[in-house]
């Protein structure tokens, strides 16, 4: 039972990284200018790397002989538990940056606690991820500042992006009974403290970026139950196409 909770938790982390990286990698070759194209791709590479380590570990914990690729490419929509925010289509660059900044700030605080996990593998993965995430956050936060204080257009685009995306922030912190069980065994941290640290970081970034935090937002939820946005099916269709079309083939 405990293994089931741990497995679910690992899927949550693995899917978060995998799906966000899948979205980011859509920008590769299409970025706003060359240097930034490469920078965003670096972030996608980091996230894919983390998702691989986590899914590999999840497959091991599950003990059903599945691989990281089975988990990534052969699960259906309802079995994915990434926060909804990760799967939202890229939109314009302000939207991509706002989405990234929200997740980066979360991951930064989350991994900073998760690194103390009693599970050594998780602690090890987190230690590596903290370093990467610090840089991701620095990158996205500096772009928030540029957009917020750049031109009228960029300010408006950033504010619009935040107004839309804020409804998906609560879902990032969702937990279930299994997660609460893992807290007791010291494998995962309490989410409340992470959320308040995240809020503090976001408030700072928003203030520096001269944009306002959307208020009284009705929050969208459902990711932990595998209830996704409509766009998610298309993302999976594309991502899983090869493994579905050629069952059993090795690549």
């Amino acid at each position, binding site marked *: 039972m405990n293994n089931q909770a741990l497995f679910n938790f690992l899927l949550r982390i693995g899917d978060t990284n995998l799906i966000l990286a899948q979205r980011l990698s859509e920008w590769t070759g299409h970025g706003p*200018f060359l240097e930034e194209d490469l920078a965003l791709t670096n972030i996608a590479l980091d996230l894919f790397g983390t998702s691989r380590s986590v899914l590999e570990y999840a497959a091991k914990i599950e003990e059903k002989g599945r691989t990281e690729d089975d988990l990534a490419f052969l699960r259906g929509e309802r079995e994915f538990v990434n926060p909804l925010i990760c799967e939202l289509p890229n939109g314009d660059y302000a939207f991509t940056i706002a989405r990234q900044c929200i997740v980066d700030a979360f991951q930064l605080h989350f991994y900073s606690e998760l690194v103390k996990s009693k599970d050594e593998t998780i602690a090890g993965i987190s230690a590596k991820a903290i370093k990467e995430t610090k840089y991701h956050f620095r*990158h996205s936060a500096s772009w928030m500042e540029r957009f917020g204080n750049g031109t009228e257009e960029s300010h408006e685009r950033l504010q619009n992006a935040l107004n839309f995306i804020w409804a998906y922030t609560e879902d990032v912190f969702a937990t279930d009974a299994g997660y609460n069980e893992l807290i007791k065994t010291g494998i995962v941290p309490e989410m409340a403290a992470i959320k308040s640290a995240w809020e503090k970081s976001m408030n700072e970034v928003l203030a520096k970026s001269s944009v306002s935090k959307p208020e009284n937002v009705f929050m969208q939820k459902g990711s932990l139950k595998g209830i996704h946005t409509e766009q998610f099916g298309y993302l999976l269709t594309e991502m899983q196409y090869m493994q579905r079309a050629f069952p059993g083939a090795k690549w």
Partner: protein
Amino acid sequence: MSENTDSQGTLWEIFVQKKAGQPFVHCGSLHAFDKEMALQNARDLYTRRGEGTAIWAVPASAIVASSPEDMGPFFDTTNDKVYRHPTFYQIPEGIKYI
């Protein structure tokens, strides 16, 4: 204030230090729109394979370079200053640590 020129940013020269204590070596150029971006872009472009531990980013416009015509007056004149090199001096045999 209504400048609307689309640009690719300004040119920066990037120097990377491989290991602490070693000199910073020029490794290439890139475009960026501000200092923080120059540093971040340098990190993403020139240290992707663990090539460095520290970076200098310098606006290309801030670099002063000698010209090919300077070659004679600048550098050839130092060739005859042999007394600047340790081998110019004779030390009696058997003297150590000097």
